[in-house]
């Protein structure tokens, strides 16, 4: 499923002094004055993705699903091919390895995908007194929907707490996932700590009690090969825009029988088989969940983004390069005694994400001063207020540098120089 480009190319990609990728990204190529270290918020897009978006409108634009003419069929085919491609990339395949394209639902973003599960699947299984277990490191989009679902069902929301370095221990999983647990929802990779959660262990724990596992892959798909079957997931959500695709396209994969059981969250055009004055019969999965005209050009461009990521660059090269970048960044940060890393001190635990604070300086001041030297980082609560509260982070805010394979050592050096300027500014 992962069509990585092999160890040789991965080794070459790990040379972070070189950057064979930057030229593919018009924004980065056109802005040598910036160091973009906020890919955890949204990635930059390669030219081929922008071209694909345009090509859809120039060569196959028609409303998918509706038309009986060839142009509309071409638009429909384009969407269906991307479904199959996504299924292949995330390991949503049958026993013969064939991609299960019909289990791929398009939404607007990972948030909408997770809302769909919480609003349409949770009511199928949650009874009063049941529990939903989530980790404290969830992004608000995999947290608030569960607060709402629990409130609606009279269920209880319980939290899995990691160690301070971000590890979910077997003891914690055993303590929190039990006979009352109907759903476990967890980030594959934390958007603040950068850690990869033990998805297979969570799956085994919840399945042992007949429950279901929902995984937020917003921060994993851009960085690593995902295999929903091998990891034992029941639902998997991600956003195209963090994985080089356009904004406004989200994906939900679910096990077919579960998707089949769920009611649609939105109703209207293109999601029905038939409608009478008083009733409607839903279309099959996935159309049942896709009311209204889809962003077909965005979906087509998402296919190109995944092709670039998984075939042109390849996950092996992505991982090798990002690991080298993170290791180098952590090493350079260690030179600055006033920088405190949030989470694990081990570079291997940070999948492209490094959160930190500068002693005594508000994260927003850090980000503003870095911006003056063209370094783009995120500062704030990172849509993870319960995590920052639990960590006891001052002001409920921290800084986050997030790296992607299209960064290089020069970006990191500029970041470090910028942090030195931040410190000097407050300690003149």
């Amino acid at each position, binding site marked *: 499923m992962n069509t990585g480009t092999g160890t040789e190319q991965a080794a070459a990609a790990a040379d972070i002094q070189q950057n064979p990728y930057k030229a593919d990204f018009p924004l980065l190529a056109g802005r040598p004055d910036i160091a973009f270290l906020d890919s955890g918020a949204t990635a930059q897009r390669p030219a081929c993705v922008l071209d694909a978006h345009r090509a859809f409108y120039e060569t196959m634009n028609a409303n998918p699903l509706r038309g009986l003419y060839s142009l509309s069929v071409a638009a429909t085919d384009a969407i269906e091919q991307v479904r199959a491609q996504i299924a292949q990339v995330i390991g949503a395949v049958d026993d013969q390895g064939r991609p299960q394209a019909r289990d791929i639902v398009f939404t607007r973003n990972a948030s909408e995908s997770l809302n769909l599960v919480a609003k349409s699947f949770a009511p199928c299984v949650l009874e009063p007194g049941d529990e939903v277990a989530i980790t404290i490191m969830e992004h608000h989009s995999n947290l608030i929907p569960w607060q709402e679902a629990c409130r609606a069902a009279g269920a209880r929301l319980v939290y899995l707490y990691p160690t301070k370095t971000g590890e979910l221990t077997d003891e914690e999983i055993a303590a929190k996932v039990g006979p009352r647990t109907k759903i476990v929802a967890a980030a594959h990779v934390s958007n603040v700590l950068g850690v990869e959660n033990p998805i297979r262990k969570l799956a085994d724990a919840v399945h042992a009690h007949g429950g279901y596992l929902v995984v937020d892959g917003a921060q994993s798909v851009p960085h690593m090969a995902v295999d929903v079957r091998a990891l034992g997931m029941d639902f998997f959500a991600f956003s195209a825009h963090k994985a080089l695709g356009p904004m406004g396209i989200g994906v939900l994969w679910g096990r077919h029988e579960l998707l089949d059981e769920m009611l649609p969250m939105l109703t209207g055009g293109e999601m029905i088989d038939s409608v009478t004055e008083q009733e409607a019969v839903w279309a099959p999965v996935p159309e049942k969940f896709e009311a209204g005209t889809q962003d077909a050009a965005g979906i087509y461009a998402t296919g190109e983004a995944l092709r670039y990521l998984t075939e042109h660059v390849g996950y092996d090269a992505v991982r090798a390069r990002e690991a080298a970048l993170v290791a180098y960044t952590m090493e350079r940060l260690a030179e600055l005694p006033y920088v405190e890393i949030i989470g694990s001190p081990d570079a291997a635990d940070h999948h492209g994400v490094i959160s930190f604070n500068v002693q005594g300086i508000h994260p927003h001041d850090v980000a503003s001063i870095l911006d*003056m030297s063209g370094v783009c980082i995120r500062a*704030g*609560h990172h849509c993870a207020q319960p995590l920052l509260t639990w960590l006891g982070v001052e002001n409920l*805010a921290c800084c986050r540098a997030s790296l992607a394979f299209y960064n290089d050592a020069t970006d990191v050096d500029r970041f470090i120089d910028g942090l030195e300027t931040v410190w000097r500014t407050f300690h003149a």
Partner: protein
Amino acid sequence: MGNLYTSTTFMEHNSHPDYKYEMDAPTHEHDGINPSCGDELTLQLRVEDGVIEEASFTGHGCAISQASADIMADLITGETVEEARRLSALFLAMIRGEELSEQDYEDLDEAAQLKDISHMPARVKCAELAWRTLDGMLA
């Protein structure tokens, strides 16, 4: 380029705020928060015969919110309530990017330094916090 962070007077207001303390007998007290940054501020005034005799603040936040509060407390101390409201309206207009007259900038004194914040939309709320709190208190 105007860089507030390199202004010695501005940074001095952040590191050594003269007006950051809890007052003994305030006549007015009001809390302000900026949820996007986590800035929190309590503004206190002692008003006698329509004149702000004393102004102080407590709380925490970024350098811009803290320095802006200290500059404001300095500016309004000794002014009438009416004048403080006029200055706060001028400040908020400036922060929104409106051009003021030379005289207005002079009246805002050190606070006029924050003009450049209008080019940093993410930080406007930080700069405004103390002034909005004052505005809400005197309205």
